[in-house]
């Protein structure tokens, strides 16, 4: 499954300062669907190069990170259970506090 993953708000620093990643992710063996839950695990193993605790906490993202699937808050479409589709765009962005 082809996906575009984007990191912002400082999270790109966890993956070698690259903001946009064009990736192919396979569903787990024996399954034909990819859920956000599985994508997070894949991202943590394949893209996050340092301080994984700045990306995940438990089986979800850490507090302060917004997840957007096709420009829409994942809370509106199932959070961890959201099933991804071909060519989906997923953004992980850390909220900023500066000014």
């Amino acid at each position, binding site marked *: 499954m082809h996906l575009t993953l984007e990191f912002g*708000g400082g999270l790109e620093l966890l993956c070698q300062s690259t903001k946009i990643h064009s990736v192919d992710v396979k569903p787990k063996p024996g399954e034909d669907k990819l859920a956000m839950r599985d994508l997070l695990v894949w991202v943590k193993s394949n893209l996050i190069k340092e301080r994984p605790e700045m990306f995940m906490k438990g089986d979800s993202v850490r507090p302060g990170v*917004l997840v957007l699937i096709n*420009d829409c808050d994942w*809370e509106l479409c199932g959070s961890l259970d959201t099933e991804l589709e071909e060519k989906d765009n997923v*953004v992980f*962005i*850390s909220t900023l506090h*500066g*000014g």
Partner: protein
Amino acid sequence: NGATLSGLSPKMIHRYSRHLLLPDFGVEGQLKLSKSSILVVGAGGLGSPVAMYLASCGVGCLGIVDSDIVELNNLHRQIIHTEAYVGQSKVKSAASSCHAINSSVKLVEHREALQAVNALDIVSKYDIVVDATDNLPSRYMISDCCVLLDKPLVSGAALGMEGQLTVYNYNGGPCYRCLFPTPPPSTACQRCSDSGVLGVVPGVIGCLQALEAIKVASAVGEPLSGRMLLFDALSSRTRTVKIRGRSPLCPICGENAAFTRENFQSFDYENFTQSPMSDRSSEKLNL
């Protein structure tokens, strides 16, 4: 047209003529603006364009709250302050600039830090609040206060080469806690003084905050409620995303919220976020 212009003096008609010509804004928008009062929390990188544009566009009353002193390393982005004010109160400096632009706006100087103990008193005097602060505990505190007092909150943030913007607690929309019920680990809380910020990035976000405040005050257009604008200066890309609505379970604005003014005034926001409200003690530059 005499009737519809009532409330605007000949001088106002001249000064704001370019607003009055706008079909989507017009006399009605200007009148509403002239009757509105807006509080800008923070006279820094975001607060500079917010206060200047709100003064120039003709809001009725503009309050500015900040306890900081103008420092030379603020001036690369805080265009409301001049070199002559280095060492003086930011609020005094900002009010002086706003008065020079538009002497018909009532300016209120709050030369103190907005904190849980004084926030209800100060915020209750205004119709709209603009969060132009630079730290996490203030963001939670201001949002909670706006929920308690039912004030719309225009919230902007900028760091590095990125900015974010949304309107909280507006028309049944979410509050800051609906989005961020749990504070991030304190190691994730970077400030401009730690990580730097390209000066014009808070300029862009601050102008957009002033715009949202003007839209709310004049009841024109669709404010950014339930939506968030994300700005990346390096690529000049902007995206406006749909965010969650008000959470029924939110401990502050939810259906069964039991958070009172008394709870608010005694809530320790610095402890809650494990992060200080003022960063003056941590000012340093590691090159």
